């Protein structure tokens, strides 16, 4: 029996996302806020929802805009929504959208809200560039100076080296390792071969391409008519390569370890722009408003481990907890979505699911089990579709429930790894 919700079941009524575009391409001129607004506006249009029904909006983003850090509030100020909508911005690295969804679900379970929009967006084409410390200090001193002379003096302190901007790198502050380096490490520790990773990447592209062609994957995409000229219309994820081959993938050079490495640009998820949102309601409100939900949240769990150990392995610790809270085992799960940050990470997670040691660390006597590959990422994953950090969690939720519906399945499991050594798992059910 489902334990989550204290008797108030949380329904996932619908999900809509923008097409995901490689950073620097079709969506590069849109900020994360604009991407968020696009998918939320279309979510409301498609579901025929009256904007005044929405109680709250929770949004996640990983790289916030310095000028407008409160993405959730800005998105909630869409004119179709009432100004009284509660809004909160959350962050749990690549699981930010999941955090948004579980926070929203918690509010519904507590009875604080009945209709909440949750999701996330990311624009990696628009990453803030930081000034060096020396330059920043000089600018602040200049703005405080009361006279022209003072200003000139402050600015004269700038040295050439101060003019070099700081580009944010995706490195763990506590370890100094970039995510790619961590994935590389995990590949070695878990004996994941180069070929296995390339096979997974190939699979991701092939299945995503099939899902795009037959319309299953694109059903949840709101075509992006890109402002301000609207000449570019993006209707599907533009990173999917339906013509890639094992030969092409194996020709790529490893990026994070030139000598012994196996992680390449081809078997890792690309930097991507996009937004995704889901509409959550209490079961009661969904029925009152005449909606048939896509499904319900049965359970979820977060986990964490030392980022210096195996940065992206935490889903292995979260999954058994979520399954236990759901009162289910892996055998009961009809469809599984695992976020593909790196092929090496997915394969490491799968090994971890089968391992007694990892089960024990999570406090279980039996391992999660052997994942049936035929039920895993059946329309590809983040490697092909793309990974806007703050949006992926919402995309995976929507994709999982939609496909579960098409196959007549009942239970679905999703896992997401996140920087900082964190992980997430959620079990959904259709009825």
């Amino acid at each position, binding site marked *: 029996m489902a334990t989550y919700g204290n008797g108030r079941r949380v329904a996932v009524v619908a999900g809509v996302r923008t097409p995901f575009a490689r950073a620097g391409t079709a969506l590069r001129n849109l900020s994360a806020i604009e991407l968020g607004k696009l998918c939320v*506006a279309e979510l409301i249009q*498609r579901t025929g929802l009256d904007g005044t029904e929405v109680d709250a909006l929770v949004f996640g983003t990983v790289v916030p805009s310095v000028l407008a850090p409160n993405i959730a509030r800005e998105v909630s100020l869409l004119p*179709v929504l009432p100004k009284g909508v509660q809004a909160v911005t959350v962050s749990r690295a690549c699981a930010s959208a999941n955090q948004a969804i579980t926070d929203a679900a918690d509010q519904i379970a507590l009875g604080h809200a009945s209709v909440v929009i949750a999701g996330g967006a990311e624009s990696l084409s628009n990453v803030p560039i930081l000034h060096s410390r020396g330059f920043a200090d000089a600018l602040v001193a200049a703005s405080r100076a009361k006279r022209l002379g003072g200003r000139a003096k402050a600015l004269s302190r700038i040295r050439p080296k101060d003019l070099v901007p700081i580009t944010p790198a995706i490195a763990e502050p506590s370890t100094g390792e970039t995510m790619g380096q961590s994935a590389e490490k995990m590949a070695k520790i878990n004996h994941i071969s180069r070929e296995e990773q390339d096979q997974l990447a190939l699979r991701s592209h092939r299945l995503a391409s099939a899902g795009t062609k037959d319309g299953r994957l694109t059903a949840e995409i709101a075509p992006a008519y890109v402002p301000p000229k*609207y000449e570019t219309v993006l*209707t599907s994820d533009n990173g999917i390569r339906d013509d890639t081959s094992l030969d092409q993938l194996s020709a790529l050079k490893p990026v994070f370890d030139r000598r012994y490495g196996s992680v390449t640009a081809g078997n890792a998820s690309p930097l991507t722009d996009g937004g995704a949102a889901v509409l959550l309601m209490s079961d009661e409100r969904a029925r009152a408003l005449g909606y048939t939900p896509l499904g319900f949240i049965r359970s979820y769990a977060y986990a964490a481990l030392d980022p210096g150990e195996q940065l992206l392995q935490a889903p292995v610790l979260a999954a058994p907890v979520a399954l236990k809270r759901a009162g289910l085992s892996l055998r009961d799960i009809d469809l599984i979505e695992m976020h593909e940050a790196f092929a090496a990470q997915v394969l490491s997670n799968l090994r971890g699911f089968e391992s007694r040691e990892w089960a024990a660390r999570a406090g279980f006597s039996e391992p999660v089990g052997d994942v049936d590959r035929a039920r895993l990422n059946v329309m590809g994953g983040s490697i092909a579709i793309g990974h806007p950090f703050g949006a992926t969690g919402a995309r995976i939720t929507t994709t999982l429930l939609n496909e579960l519906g098409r196959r007549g399945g009942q239970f679905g499991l999703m896992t997401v790894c996140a920087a900082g050594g964190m992980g997430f798992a959620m079990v959904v059910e259709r009825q």
Partner: protein
Amino acid sequence: MTATAIRAPAASALTTEVRDGIAVVTLDVPGAPVNTFARSVREEFAVLLDRLERDDAIRGVVIRSGKPDVWVAGADIEEFLEIETASQAEAMSRDGHSLLGRLEKLTTPVVAAIHGACLGGGLEAALACAYRIASDAPKTVFALPEVQLGLIPGAGGTQRLPRLVGLQAALDMILTGKNVRARKALQIGLVHELVHPAILDDIAIARARALADGTLRRDGTRRSHGAKEILLDDNRVGRAVVLRQARECVVARTRGQYPAPIAALDVVATGYAQGMERGLRAEARLFGELAVSEVSRQLVFLFFAVSALKKDPGVPQLAPPPLPVRKLVILGAGFMGAGIASIAAPQGTLVRLKDADHARVGKGLAAVREVLNDRLAKKQLTRLELEDYMSLVGGTIDYSGFANVDLVIEAVFEDLAVKQRVLRETEQVTRSNTIFASNTSTIPIATIAEASSRPERVIGMHFFSPVPKMPLLEVIVAPKTSAEVTTTVVAYGKALGKTVIVVNDSPGFYANRILAPYINEAGLLLDEGVAIDAVDRALVDFGFPVGPITLLDEVGLDIAGKSGAIMVEAFGSRLAPSQSLQRVVAAGRTGRKGKKGFYRYDDKGKKGGVDLSVYELLPTGAQRTEVPAEEIQRRCVLAMVNEAVRCLQENILRSPRDGDVGAVFGIGFPPFRGGPFRYVDTLGAERVVRALEGLNTDRSPRFAPAQLLIEKARENRRFYPERGHPLGG
């Protein structure tokens, strides 16, 4: 501010409360939505002035309004209708001068605390005050709109305004009647100060006190004194240049058909040349003349007609309350569809714009944004508002998001089969009470509705192009259309800012139907060998903004051809198109959109001169005939007017009022003539019938006078009363 006031007997408009020697006067006309200077208000004002002239205990005065968004909206227009002679009007103006003269000469300083609309006589009163302080709010606007009613300001505005804000700024306001917002008012020196609305009263009182104490000087202008002002406003030579240029501009724009702006220039010039006293007398005299002028009568009629239409729910009796329109679907993202979206989104309507493929939807969205960008450039909205409005318009190529739609407006290709198909498809995905409105310009609504499973929800909403600019909306009611659908669509049209007339279903409805014989006649003149530009020039001289041949090029020759065919089928040979049009269409010319029509067009679509090669296609070839302009006007205009009367006779039109407003706002019938039915009244029905019979020949019965005209002529009756309220109400 609660007034612990000395209230005069009930039903008084002015309430005065004295606080520490400062008299705070609140103007709040009982039972009226806005403040106007009606007779009773002026009388109370005179009594107040008596008191202020004598009472030493009052050291300063603040005049404020008790109405939420209006300070004073001007004169009482109903009172204006009582005027029968020029001298009556002149006397009224001189009374106003005297009253405001007393106000201006008071030793006690008067501060105007202005929040909301300050128009016409209201602005003139404010100009007579020692100090003007206004709220920095969107509703606070200033204007002298008299010229739009064929008048000039009659209470000293032509004299006080230029002396305060300079000649150029004053002429800009007086000659156009445009609204000036609070910030601009401060910039040009019209007001001394802008403050937040919440502290308006307090600061006004403080200023009154300071003026009384002498710590604030009563001074003249604060306006910008840039080089332009010094050169042109502050000296006689500069002013002469400005006045001359303004005169040329006005004459070119109005083609001598509107006397009011010229009179305004004369009166302003007199004031500078001979002093304010003479200027005021000239103002009163010309105000008097204009008040009883034909042009003013017609413009005042149009004002009343539009006001009456605003209150008309669109259904003759027992109007059911209109349903809300919160979500709108527009089928067809072309020029019309995008235009409708661009006025619907700023109203807060959630819009779904559908078309056949993504490229078309993208173009539609770009067109919507272009309209909003224009408004941004004119500072009519902010960038944030623009982004908000765009977020309300969602594009789609399928029927997703149709489940909660209140109104569907169909603006697809002008083809019955296509329209019926989208009607059927849409009915399957919308609610049972969703309204389906067609923007067709030629196909009868009842015909489209034959494909409907709920014809009572089908109606016509005929917008005019370009939608953001053209004020008219024809709502077309078919026999089965329900009253609730009519009132809903009429109310929504008004919410979109349109002037709405309701007409009954018939080919061409009203506006396009009366356009047909007018354009045909122009074509027939071409058939006879009249020069293209001669025809157009004659009708522009008559008062149309563009001539019929230019209009043909604008509308599209192919569209005009198709529409002509429908008219002939419906109404017979009376509306048979000319040879000229048929041949030009057959030759493949489409007009401005194809850059090849009767006129030449450059790459940007700008119109050049007549395309002389067209004459080779026309019946008389290179041979030209000269027909007097007056005859060209008579033939084209009477053809239109006759058809308009037929529309009333056949009950397509519900009233002459609707016909006049429809013609003026939909197809450019000269406003200074009031409209086709006003025109008949001006000429006299008998004279019109005789003229038509004169034009009518056995060869073509197209000028046979409408039966209703013959009756009016015989009984010597008019469409409108000769005196009193122009609508006869």
